[in-house]
């Protein structure tokens, strides 16, 4: 395990990405202390340029862009992580049961997950948010609903191969019950692909959340990066920073998460990249 961490942090891309993510998480956690004002407070005249009175200027209603960015980090990360956790938990349960019991149970669960996969996921998310009425919770539900099938497929595949291994048969012969076998013997061995897929899912969730907020389907009482871009898009030529700054924040964060996910994968399977 020690060599895992050394390989993980020995990768410069991972190191930079982790620094950026650490910074974002720190900002999100300390938002009320760091942000000069409430993100929705009108503090100055609209469209004041960056590096003036306010570091990043103000938007079309005179709100402090920096404050919005800081609170936006909080919203984006919180919703993305909650949605991913929900998707991973549900997907793992479905995939594990389908893979472990096989037969009719497997058929049924996999057809259901295919049903979810065939609907274009972003449109599905829009429909869900529209039905549920926009709020932080409905964003989490919508993103989780469209994100769990890939997790279920990954877990099912892993469980299928692991349950054929002899140590699982040994546990059956020892008289262990199904649930302890599934939880204690099979799932821990399926962890590494799950971690990789899950970490990439966080990046995807941030993108969906931003896109929904951009369309005005985000939580109305929460400032978010996507909402900032959506609000600033009409003024792209006059006040480019309104769109660019939150856009770069999304870009860097999503890139960092992807690189970390890749780094986890490389560190878990060191030979794969070497040979």
């Amino acid at each position: 395990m020690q060599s895992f961490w050394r390989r993980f942090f020995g990768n410069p891309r991972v190191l930079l990405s982790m620094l950026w993510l650490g910074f974002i998480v720190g900002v999100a956690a300390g938002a009320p202390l760091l942000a000069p004002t409430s993100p929705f407070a009108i503090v100055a005249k609209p469209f004041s340029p960056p590096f003036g009175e306010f570091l990043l200027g103000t938007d079309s209603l005179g709100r402090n862009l920096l404050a919005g960015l800081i609170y936006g980090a909080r919203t984006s990360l919180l919703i993305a992580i909650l949605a991913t956790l929900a998707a991973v938990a549900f997907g793992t349960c479905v995939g594990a049961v389908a893979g472990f019991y096989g037969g009719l149970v497997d058929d049924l669960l996999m057809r259901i997950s295919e049903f979810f996969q065939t609907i274009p996921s972003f449109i599905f998310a829009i429909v869900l948010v529209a039905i549920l009425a926009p709020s932080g919770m409905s964003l989490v539900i919508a993103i989780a609903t469209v994100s769990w099938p890939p997790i279920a497929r990954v877990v099912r595949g892993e469980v299928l191969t692991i349950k054929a291994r002899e140590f699982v048969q040994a546990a059956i012969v020892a008289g262990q019950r199904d649930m302890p076998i599934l939880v204690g013997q099979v799932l821990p061995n399926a962890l590494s692909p799950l971690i990789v897929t899950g970490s990439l899912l966080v990046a995807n969730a941030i993108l969906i959340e931003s896109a929904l907020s951009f369309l005005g389907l985000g939580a109305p009482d929460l400032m978010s990066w996507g909402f900032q871009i959506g609000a600033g898009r009409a003024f792209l030529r006059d006040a480019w920073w309104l769109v660019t700054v939150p856009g770069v924040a999304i870009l860097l964060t999503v890139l960092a998460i992807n690189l970390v996910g890749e780094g986890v994968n490389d560190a878990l399977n060191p030979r794969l990249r070497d040979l």
Partner: protein
Amino acid sequence: MSDSVLAIENLTVALPPWADRAHAVDNVALEVRRREILCVVGESGSGKSVMAKSILRLLPEPHVRVTAGRILYGGENLLTLPLSGMRAIRGGRIAMIFQEPMVALNPLMTVGRQTDEIVEVHTSLTPAARRQRVIEVFADVRLPEPEQLLKSYPHELSGGQRQRVMIAMALALEPALIIADEPTTALDVTTQAQILRLLKELQARHGTAILFITHDFGVVAEIADRVAVMQQGKLVETGETAEVLLRPQHAYTQALVAAVPSLNPRRGVPRPSAAACERPLLAVAGLSKTYAGRGGVFALARRRVPAVAGVSLEIGKGGSLALVGESGSGKSTLARCIVGLERADHGAILLEGHDVAQLSRARLRPFRKVLQMIFQDPFASLNPRWRVGDIIAQGPIVNGTPRRKAHAEAGELLRLVGLDPKAANRYPHEFSGGQRQRIGIARALAVKPKLIIADEPVSALDVSVQKQVLELLDQLRRAFELSMLFITHDLRVAAHVCEEIAVMKDGTIVERGATADVFAAPKHDYTKALLAAVPGRDWTRAGQ
């Protein structure tokens, strides 16, 4: 050295830094002479395959690479030859036969076309002449109806036929040297005997030299003119086959030769008494199991594969029965039915008089204490994320032993199987194959069973480790008065372990009896064929 085909001089092959030793092959000098079969023998990790691959420059460079030495073929150093020259040598002058023909053949190409391709690349023959040549070599390796076979895909052939195709491909251009890397290891024993006979015959007819890599001294005795023994990348002994096998000089060779189990059945083990036989510990009656291929929702017809068809057997208290058969004979399915990993279709399995054949897994649980299993693959049978102590204590804990007591007993069991009790705190990957199999045995013993089913427990192990594990099993069996059902494809192992033997073929038992009787006077034709196919049987008989 005019009769030398290939000379390897001071060859050293470096391993990547993460490997457990610096050199896969360490300063090896070897010579293959014209018209001879040179066997390179060694256990896994001895560097024999790496050495063979370095001849044709097939090493996974740059991680595994030659750092010193020369490989001379026809006066040229193959290691410095330009790639174009190397291509002419590969296939044309030096051919290679691999271990697993299913993987070595392209599944999307007919075997005829694959063989034809080699001729096409290396010669300027017309298509018609090439086709003639392919048919010739197919006939040469005794493939049935070579003209029809040209159009077959690899999956349509049996394992032995696929290996014949591989040999035909190697022979197609009449190479001066064939390198055969464990060519019969993946085959059943009767097929292996046929392939070995074929290789020997072809070699005599074509005058090809063969460099034969193997781990099996029986095969060496069967086919080799000369033997080279490798250990940890070093060449420890070379000599004429008879010399090395009967009068080995190096201590390592002596140990290896001594570890090959003899074909002479064991004696002196008390047969189970008549009283114990009256009510056998395990009695299987008329057991059948047919696999129905899972067709899914839309499949109309399902393929039915009978795996076990009406098998009956008994094992008395303290008795041991070897179940011998080739792959696909149903022996593993039978074992899985008995331990309850599969449910039999028909028949009864009486364990101490109770029929357990149709019990659900929950109702079977009380019987787990009577019956335990040892698995084949020591790398797959231990959960990599569990500590050894937890793995061994798992069974007793499930069966109601307090956790602390189970762990104390686990330490004791580890001592019993010859490991340090401190091993309980370590993870499986820290152990070697033989040590892992000892852990597997300790796990099976942990619930104090009366009957152990061992499914090929030593077939994944090197011969010296195999001997130690077999001795351990034997010793434990006596100490605990265990009964054992021992499943193996290896008649030598069966002879070594069990006083009774049952031979299985196509899901039925064709012959059973005391091992000594069956070996001395086999009644069924199949048993006779199996016994005749054991490689090196004359040598081990002569050596006794």
